[in-house]
């Protein structure tokens, strides 16, 4: 009975709150949307990035082949693709492209541009980083029978390939730009998206104006927009409260939500959802003593995730305890199984005793190291403070080094870190995406533990080919067990997304990922 009432209350709240924006209204054209971006990207290249800082910056300028229909998530729909067909054996995907699409420099989009983009994603040239290399490794060849048709022929079955084509990271670049300089997307923007690039003032903002030649007729609604870098949470909240920015699309903490609601009442819309995002603890296995599995395992066993989740969920966006797949999603590991894995025991006293023993056995009873972290207050700082406290309890001394996103990523990409708080930034729950980050570094450059493990790679490949859900689930469990036993890296906690938007902001859809729906094409201002 109680749960029925709760369900009804939640439904009522959802209708009252979230549906506010969903009430059918005729979109109004015009206006400028100012929104907050709480980190500044180090470059503009979607293919090389893992952080929303790049996507919230670059998405409005680009299109993708497919995209997720957020109202029916995780259903996919066409973006540049007008239609598509999938072979019954999943070994080929044929896309028909929209006609009359032009890049911002006036060049017409053809299938050659899609081919060049996906070639760069799956097989980046020397000096170019593609963090989606592993995801698209199953593509054998890309054919372009005519300027508006592109055919992907697979080497092997990938059960989630269609969803991967809808990834927001696959910004379509112009073939001629890539031919001239494969690294050009890092510094120059030329897309087919709803907005054209106006300026990037470092430390201040990025702005775009309506692409009058956008291939989706009538879109975008906004005249222009400005993404303002608000690195300090307090500045972002003040700007939201004062109306200088109308939204922060990534997510805020529970305390920040409460402050905004108390101060702004019904002028602010708050939408909440579990998040396809987690923080990871990554040990650089190329550095001593983290090349020793006992040390890595000990450090994971010292963490009281269950207690920590209760406290951290009150002060940060961190909330759920989970394995490599988002808790609550179909392939997630149930709690009863999770507690048997290293780092997830509920008997923290016993676990820490074992951790101390392992450190002693490894010859580093009073281990000291540097923990690399981002200088984003939420939730990186609370996570760092929490971890340092947990490790102190087994006699480990940690220096906390927080730096801006650019330095932090450069340090980890170069392998100069010892231990880092990394993130697994997913845009859907499919395991082919969730597990890719843990593959050998030779296949997945975003693997910050820099581990090389043939057994994990094989389990991943086997699970990708498996179409029976039960067997696929078993392979995911085996992968997770191997990963946590080797303790290369492990999720700390999964996030909870809370997005504040002014009530005048319409047409933006909430989703479990802050990477989706950021092209702003359908966003309009009700004023």
């Amino acid at each position, binding site marked *: 009975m109680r749960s029925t009432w709760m369900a009804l209350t939640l439904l009522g709240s959802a209708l009252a709150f979230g549906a506010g924006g969903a009430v059918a209204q005729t979109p109004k054209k015009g206006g400028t949307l100012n929104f907050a971006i709480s980190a500044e990207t180090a470059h503009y290249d979607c293919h090389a990035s893992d952080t929303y800082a790049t996507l919230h910056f670059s998405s409005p300028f680009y299109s993708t082949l497919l995209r997720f229909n957020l109202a029916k998530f995780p259903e996919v729909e066409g973006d540049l693709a007008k239609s598509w067909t999938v072979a019954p054996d999943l070994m080929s995907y044929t896309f028909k492209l929209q006609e009359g699409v032009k890049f911002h420099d006036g060049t017409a989009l053809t299938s050659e541009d899609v081919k060049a983009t996906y070639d760069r994603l799956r097989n980046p040239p020397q000096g170019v980083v593609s963090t989606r290399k592993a995801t698209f490794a199953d593509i054998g060849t890309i054919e372009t029978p005519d300027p508006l048709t592109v055919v992907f022929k697979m080497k092997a079955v990938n059960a989630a390939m269609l969803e991967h084509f809808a990834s927001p990271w696959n910004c379509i670049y112009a073939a001629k730009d890539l031919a001239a300089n494969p690294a050009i997307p890092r510094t120059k923007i030329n897309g087919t998206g709803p907005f054209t690039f106006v300026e990037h003032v470092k430390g201040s903002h990025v702005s775009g104006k309506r692409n009058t030649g956008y291939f989706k007729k009538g879109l975008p609604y906004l005249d222009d927009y400005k993404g303002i870098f608000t690195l300090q949470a307090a500045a972002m909240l003040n700007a939201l409260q004062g109306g200088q920015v109308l939204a922060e699309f990534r997510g805020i903490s529970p*305390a920040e939500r409460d402050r905004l609601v108390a101060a702004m009442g019904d002028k602010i819309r708050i939408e909440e959802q579990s998040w396809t995002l987690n923080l990871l603890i990554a040990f650089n296995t190329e550095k001593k003593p983290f090349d020793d599995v006992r040390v890595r395992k000990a450090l994971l066993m010292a963490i009281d995730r269950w207690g920590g989740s209760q406290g951290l969920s009150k*002060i940060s966006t961190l909330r759920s305890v989970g394995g490599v797949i988002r808790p609550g999603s179909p392939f997630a590991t149930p709690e009863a199984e999770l507690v048997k894995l290293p780092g997830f025991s509920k008997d923290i006293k016993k676990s820490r005793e074992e951790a101390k023993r392992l450190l002693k056995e490894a010859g580093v009873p009073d281990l000291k190291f540097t923990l690399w972290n981002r*200088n984003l207050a939420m939730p990186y*700082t609370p996570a760092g403070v929490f971890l*340092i*406290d947990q490790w*102190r309890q087994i006699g480990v001394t940690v220096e*906390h080094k927080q730096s801006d996103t650019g330095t932090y990523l450069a340090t980890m990409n170069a392998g100069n870190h010892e231990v880092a708080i990394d993130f697994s930034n997913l845009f859907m729950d499919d395991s082919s995406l969730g597990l890719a980050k843990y593959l050998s570094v030779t296949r997945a450059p975003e693997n910050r533990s820099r581990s090389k493990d043939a057994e994990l790679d094989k389990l991943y490949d086997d699970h990708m080919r498996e179409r029976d859900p039960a067997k696929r689930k078993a392979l995911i469990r085996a992968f997770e067990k191997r990963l946590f036993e080797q303790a290369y890296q492990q999720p700390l906690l999964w996030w909870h997304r809370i997005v504040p938007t002014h009530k005048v902001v319409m047409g933006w859809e909430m989703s479990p990922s802050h990477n989706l729906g950021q092209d702003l094409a359908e966003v309009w201002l009700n004023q």
Partner: protein
Amino acid sequence: MTIAAPAEAAPRVPNAAMEFARRQPLGAISFVIICVMMTAGIFCEWVAPYDPLAIDFVQLLGAPSLEHWCGTDAYGRDICSRLIYGARTALVIGFTSSFVGSTLGAILGVASAYFGGRIDNWIQRVVDILLAFPIIVLALVVVAAFGRFAVAGIDVNLILAIAIPIVPRVARVVRAAALSVRVMPYVDAARAAGYSHTRIIFRHMAPNVVAPYLIMLTAFIAQAILAEASLSFLGLGVQEPTAAWGLMLSGNAADFYRQAPWMILFPGVAISLAVFAFNLFGDSLRDYLDPRFKV
């Protein structure tokens, strides 16, 4: 009959500390505050009631009580203990920055006055350029340019960032004092005796500008503490979970200060009190040492 000569009264040796307290009561009070702060900073392991880094989510945002005198923060950490440990951070960075900055400034000021001419001109133009920047702006530039470099847990670049803006300010004041010393006959005599420049600067001129140097040193400790707190507040100083007053005012204090005002009240009071004490002590020391005020 012999009459014993009356015993000669022993001359009264004025107790310098008592004399300072009598003539500068506010200075004496400030000195007491500084001593309390130093004691807390030096002996924080014994004085602090709790481990300043220990998280206790059960005590999250606890109001001041008998158990936690200044309440607890968003991680359930004892604020009183963090304030006590924060005194160490403030003093280490404040003293070191001020000492490094003032000493370099004094050397530069004396050398500038001693050599005169083109050297003096060049040094003073550089000083002019550096003086054009407010302390916090220059410190921000240095921190942003050099990042962090910790030695034994102390951020050397942070100390340098705060020390560099102090250098020109002290150099200018000390140069003024050294100019009057330079024309003294004993400096001419030293020159005539063939002593080296280094010997003349350090043995004959520097001791005579110690008074302005000491005054500037104490005054800039306050500025350095404030700069450290400001940089930490801006996320460029010491980092979590280190106990530091400026850091206690930033971070999640900004999120929770409405429901837990003690999170900002006590660190704010600590910073104000420390800055007030060092400033007042510096002023009182100047008045006490200035012969014009003894008349």
